[in-house]
């Protein structure tokens, strides 16, 4: 728990799990949660560098702003997902097709 490598490794694992989720999941909400995982991994990196590098406290402030922006993005994103469900009656992103062919 006491070196910067632990946090960087956990952050890399979270990033790659989020990447896998974004590329393979077909449910819009799950893609959403995977994007949140990617953003959280970036925040862990910022906090780790503020603890272990020359970046004292500035990294935590960056991560704080990133959390706020993530939440704003999430509110708009959920609104879009609900709107898509009201229009297409599904949130499977392979079926969101207005041209008529399956």
């Amino acid at each position: 728990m006491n070196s910067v490598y632990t946090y960087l490794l956990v952050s890399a694992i979270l990033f790659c799990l989020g990447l896998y989720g974004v590329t393979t999941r077909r449910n819009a909400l799950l893609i959403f949660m995977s994007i949140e995982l990617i953003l959280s991994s970036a925040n862990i990196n910022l906090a780790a560098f503020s603890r272990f590098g020359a970046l004292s406290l500035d990294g935590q402030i960056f991560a704080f702003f990133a959390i706020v922006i993530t939440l704003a993005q999430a509110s708009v994103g959920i609104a879009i997902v609900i709107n898509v469900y009201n229009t297409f009656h599904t949130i499977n992103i392979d079926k969101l097709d207005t041209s008529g062919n399956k």
Partner: protein
Amino acid sequence: MVILLTVSSAAIVTLSKNLKHSIFAFVATLIGISGMYIFLMADLLAIANIILNVVALSVLIIIGALLTSKVTDFKIPKSVKQKYIYAGISLLFFILLVILIFITPWKTEKSELTNYTIKAIEESIITSYLMPLEIVSIFLLSALVGAAFLIRKR
């Protein structure tokens, strides 16, 4: 322990077949991330993560799940066929990241953080980070107005 909680529940989020399991594992992941912030002496980040992400974002996602799927049927549609290709790409990217992490000479000495960073952070926010604070406030306001505009009744 915290790392185990974070990584295992993140794996459940991306690999589970059931939307309910994914959502609750997502909440567990965020709680684990807050624990990692506490180990990094970032108490303001831990509190903000619990209040904003664990409570507000999870409630948003649960409401979204309830509004967009039938309550008895939380099945996730089948994944794409090229799942193994994407898994390989993610794995390659992970290996690249690990190599980069271990060949880079990081500064490993701890910086001079006090046990109580909230006061220092708030002084820094209202002095040298005032402009980003204003921009984030306007951005948050416009995002809220936009979300309310998107789900209005037509």
